């Protein structure tokens, strides 16, 4: 690319006076050469003449469409808001269930739920924990029974550790 071609790619503020003059000259040259051609001159005149009349109806039609579009967008937005509220509500319910479960059913237990955990997953986890709890209860029951059979002073777990 020559230096003269390069100046057409730069912004006006970056051009020197001489460079700006080159652009102006080349544009003026184009203009004058195009006007020399009669057929083009008449075409240019015809093109310049063909312009529609101002239409207030067009303006009101455009503004009406904008109004309608804004209305639709407002509807879409309120639905979106509702959806986001529902999301928050579901999150709050999950949190409440976790708190209730950890404080009432299994106090002190360390449960980690991922953020995206659904209610179904929570229910599954609850049932797993419940079945584990009952298994421990059964074991304790049996241990109690076992310790009773060994005598009231016998302590089951210390027996195991010693054994």
């Amino acid at each position, binding site marked *: 690319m020559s230096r003269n*071609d390069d100046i*057409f*790619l730069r912004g*006006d503020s970056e051009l020197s006076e001489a460079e700006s003059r080159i*652009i102006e000259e*080349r*544009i003026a040259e*184009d203009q004058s050469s*195009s006007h020399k*051609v009669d*057929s*083009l001159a*008449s*075409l*240019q005149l*015809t*093109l*310049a*003449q*063909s*312009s*529609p*009349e*101002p*239409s*207030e109806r*067009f*303006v009101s*039609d*455009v*503004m009406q*469409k*904008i*109004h309608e*579009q804004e209305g639709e967008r407002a509807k879409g937005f309120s639905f979106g808001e509702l959806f986001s509220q529902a999301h928050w509500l579901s999150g709050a319910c999950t949190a409440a269930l976790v708190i209730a479960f950890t404080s009432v059913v299994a106090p002190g237990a360390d449960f980690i739920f991922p953020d995206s955990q659904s209610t179904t997953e929570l229910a599954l986890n609850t049932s797993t924990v419940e079945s584990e709890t009952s298994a421990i209860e059964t074991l304790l029951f049996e241990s109690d029974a076992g310790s009773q059979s060994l005598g009231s002073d016998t302590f089951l777990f210390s027996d195991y550790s010693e054994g």
Partner: protein
Amino acid sequence: MAQALFFKDQSDEELVAASLEGKNQAFAELVRRYETRIRGYCAQMLRNPSLAEDIAQETFLKAYVKLSGFRSDSSFSTWLYRIATNRCIDECRKQKRRSFFGLDTIPEIADEVSDSETLETRQQLVQILSGMSDEYRSVLLLRESQGLSYAELAETLGCSLESVRAKLKRARKKAVEVRERLLGTT
């Protein structure tokens, strides 16, 4: 009414800022200011009056929706022409596809012409424009009909001044060729 009169004296930049603040009367003034130019340009580009009105409306609607993305380093008018040009070229391509598959034909008469034009000139003009590619037609119309400067053309078409010069030169040459062919002078 008083508000409409107030906006009449505002610059494009002030009207854009007011529109962004939710003052629809300001945007209505922008539509009023540019509607004849955009409608005329779309009519010449598409050569179908009713379709041209729809596309001109869409141009303003798109401008309204995208107004927050408008950067004041270009003028509002060239930005508007850019939207109209892209929309018209898209529409021309759609029409060509439909025409190719025989779904419809491109109407040949544009009714947006001044009284001073003769029918002969009008038909010639339509034929000349029809014989040019969409890109050449748009650059020629923006320059000769809409009176955009080279710098404004570069902004509208998103290219360099040199590229504008080259495109315009080729478009003019093509227009002369089509006209001479129509008149049987070659």
